[in-house]
């Protein structure tokens, strides 16, 4: 993806960044372009969490094949996140339930949270960016 050289804003400050992924992987560009921001934020050595909620849970679904719609399949990127020290992946239980999905349907290891647990996690963040 983008230039992944270590970056530094010079301040030495580390903040808690949460990226809230709400949209399906295809249909709009938000998931793809959102991932770019996540990777850059990790390159700045910030404390990164990713949350998948609403149709955003489809981003992590196994067996995505985007050939038929002639757009890039970027789902492999989620499996590479660990290599960028992005290991805090959270999924909303209610969003999985509403779509008939379970943790076994997902391509990466995640922590599944209830709505109150998610709310607590959000309250701890310094910056929440929603895509």
């Amino acid at each position, binding site marked *: 993806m983008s230039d992944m050289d270590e*970056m530094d804003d010079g*301040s030495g400050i580390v*903040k808690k*960044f949460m990226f809230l992924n709400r949209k399906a992987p295809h249909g709009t560009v938000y998931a793809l372009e959102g991932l770019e921001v996540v990777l*850059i934020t990790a390159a*700045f050595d910030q404390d990164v969490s990713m949350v998948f909620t609403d149709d955003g849970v489809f981003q992590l679904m196994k067996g995505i094949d985007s050939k038929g719609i002639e757009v890039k399949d970027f789902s492999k990127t989620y499996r590479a996140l660990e290599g960028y020290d992005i290991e805090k992946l959270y999924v909303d239980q209610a969003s999985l339930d509403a779509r008939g999905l379970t943790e076994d349907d997902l391509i990466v290891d995640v922590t599944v949270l209830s709505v109150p647990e998610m709310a607590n996690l959000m309250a701890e963040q310094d*910056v929440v*960016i*929603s*895509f």
Partner: protein
Amino acid sequence: MQFGILVNEGPYTHQASDTAYLFARTAIEKGHTVPRVFFYHDGVNNSTRLATPPQDDRNISARWSKLAAEHGVDLVVCVAAAQRRGINDDVLAPGYRISGLGQLVEMGIQYDRLVTFGD
């Protein structure tokens, strides 16, 4: 308080850029500072000087330019998102510049608040 602003939608179709502008202008009027606005996704389309909306409508691109000129707001357009959408230095309105996503992350690190306006 220092506010960073992220605009994720283009002009006119969505209200995001209008609301972001009104938020920024009001924050400045109330004595806060808005050092930078970052344009991402279709938000990069706010930066073109080629838009010519009807006379009786607001000119979204131009009023961001005016805010930048009057209050020193840094209007940053994401380079990767801009390249996808045909936005380059040749079409930028005054006060906008093209740069990388690091400028967005910096807002999150350095400012008191980062406020997203999008769909």
